[in-house]
């Protein structure tokens, strides 16, 4: 970070081009999708720290052919942290909050989740929060009040407040975590998890969450991670999501969507709206209840290749992603990737509106 009289600052410029190839056989496909075939996002990011204050802002511009292009200036984080005593700490402001230990799926990120469908998700916006924490040498207890505000322009469209209690303890090779949260409607969520290192090269982790708000649904994940001395590393992770669709739910949705498509000529406006609504199912964290993630990567000095394969065994669908991240000199980073959605025509991923996506990130860090 560059130090100035105004504090420590870190600037980054990122360009993120994407090319999407669409699946015309998908019942969710619409010719409107073509307007987003080629996309380019530009981001100017600033991280800043000064005397307990931390801020992060982004100026983002989005270009897509024949679509409404937009520019946004966002204050993603702005918070103040200070010590109240030797043990007690407080944090106030807009801050990202995530506590899960999983790699692909993190049920314990119950207040804020990263979107999983996007190949290059933007950095998450922080949530307005007050966090009071007591730290010992190996553990902590946190009391968190959040008031998540949804904006549309300058108007508030929704607010959700919650109180959360989090406990953490490190015990030699173990990290233990427990969380409970109450929403403003009285709904309760609670869960826990641990990660443990086994010997020199292995790590096992698990987490689980019960959510009253989803008619008593459970979410859980268990994973095994291995690192080799050569830099090769592998991961196998199973995730269960009780809030996700089953195969029969998808089949019913496919049938309904096909019916609505057939009626497009007679009731175009209503059915186009329905199609859009049906597509929203694809924004869920998991498309099916059982999910298996396999990852093999190489941690090189300059180039880091990786292959990820997410499978949904219930319907035979999968997502295959190839990645290569390379450092250029001291300040630049280049990331190239391709994601392919696979599966039979009655599978969730096989029916996605996209076949495959090519994507890249070029990032340079600089001082102002």
């Amino acid at each position: 970070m560059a130090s100035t009289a105004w504090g420590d600052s870190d600037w980054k410029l990122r360009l993120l081009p994407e090319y999407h190839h669409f699946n015309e056989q998908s019942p969710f496909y619409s010719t409107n999708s073509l307007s987003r075939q080629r996309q380019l996002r530009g981001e100017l990011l600033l991280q800043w720290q000064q005397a307990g204050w931390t801020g992060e802002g982004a100026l983002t511009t989005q270009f897509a052919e024949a679509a409404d292009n937009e520019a946004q200036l966002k204050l993603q984080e702005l918070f103040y942290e200070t010590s109240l005593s030797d043990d007690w700490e407080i944090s106030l402001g807009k801050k990202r909050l995530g506590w899960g230990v999983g790699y692909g799926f993190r049920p314990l990120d119950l207040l804020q989740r990263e979107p999983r469908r996007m190949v290059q998700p933007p950095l998450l916006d922080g949530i307005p929060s007050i966090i009071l924490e007591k730290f010992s040498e190996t553990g902590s207890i946190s009391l968190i009040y959040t008031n998540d505000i949804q904006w549309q322009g300058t108007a508030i469209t929704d607010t959700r407040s919650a109180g959360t209690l989090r406990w953490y303890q490190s015990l030699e090779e173990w990290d233990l975590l427990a969380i409970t949260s109450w929403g403003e409607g009285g709904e309760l969520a609670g869960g826990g998890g641990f990660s443990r290192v086994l010997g020199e090269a292995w790590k096992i982790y698990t987490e689980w969450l019960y959510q009253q708000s989803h008619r008593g649904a459970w979410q859980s994940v268990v994973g095994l991670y291995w690192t080799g001395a050569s830099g090769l590393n592998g991961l196998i992770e199973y995730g269960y999501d009780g809030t996700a669709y089953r195969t029969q739910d998808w089949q019913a949705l496919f049938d309904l969507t096909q019916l609505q498509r057939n009626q497009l000529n007679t009731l175009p406006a209503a059915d186009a709206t329905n199609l859009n609504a049906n597509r929203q199912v694809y924004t869920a964290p998991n498309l099916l209840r059982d999910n298996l993630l396999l990852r093999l990567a190489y941690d090189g000095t300059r180039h880091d290749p990786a292959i990820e394969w997410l499978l949904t065994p219930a319907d035979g669908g999968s997502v295959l992603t190839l990645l290569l991240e390379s450092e250029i000199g001291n300040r630049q980073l280049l990331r190239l990737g391709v994601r392919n959605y696979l599966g039979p025509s009655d599978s969730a991923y096989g029916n996605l509106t996209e076949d495959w996506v090519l994507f890249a990130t070029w990032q340079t860090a600089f001082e102002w």
Partner: protein
Amino acid sequence: MSKLLNYLIIIFLFGYANSVASLPEVATILKVADSFRLPTATARVETLVELYKNEVLEKSREYRVYLKPGRRSLVLFRSPQEAGQKVLMVEENFWMLMPNSRRPIRITPIQKLLGEAATGDIATLTWSEYYSGTLVEADTDYQGTPALSLALDSKVKGTTYAHIDLWVARDDYAPLAADLYVQSGKLAKQAKFITETVAGQRRVVRMTLLDRLQRQRRTEVKMLSVTAAELPDKYFNPMFLIRNNLEETE
């Protein structure tokens, strides 16, 4: 106080240096050798790491390392590309915090070997806390400097290197060179220590690491400054990594 103690140890040892038979315990020699890299028990070390491939500088990285007795180190990544990344080591347990993330991730001992420079190379600046040793040769030389040869074996779990062959100067036990072996028994790196007089004290100011697994690679670890600085114990709690108010204590 620790400086005075180091001087006393060195003066005490000089009295015996002429006689090989009366060499002090290896543990004592290691403590003196440690004082050339880390003159105070709790310290803040600013480090510049330069990575060469086929003798061409590929990249450089800056780190700030806080060290505390009890095998505790906190590494803050300072280069623009990595700013915000942190690694915490507490005994044989390790965690990493990635930039823009609010979740510390527990990492395996092998993971700290990976990356630009093994994080262990910059965050572990003492041998006496981690290794037990035996004297191999009391009357040898290293590139013309009269030296002692020591064999060190890890006495705790999670060390970066399982075995070290170490050469220290026979007159004052300043570290000269080391062969660093990983758990499998392979020679991973060869280190050479360069000392200079800083503020009236002879100190290690640079460490050259020759990679013996990827032979075209060489790493220069330059210790830009070592200052006495003590962080409260809670800063070595993994969950505290997500807080950014570190500078408040300095």
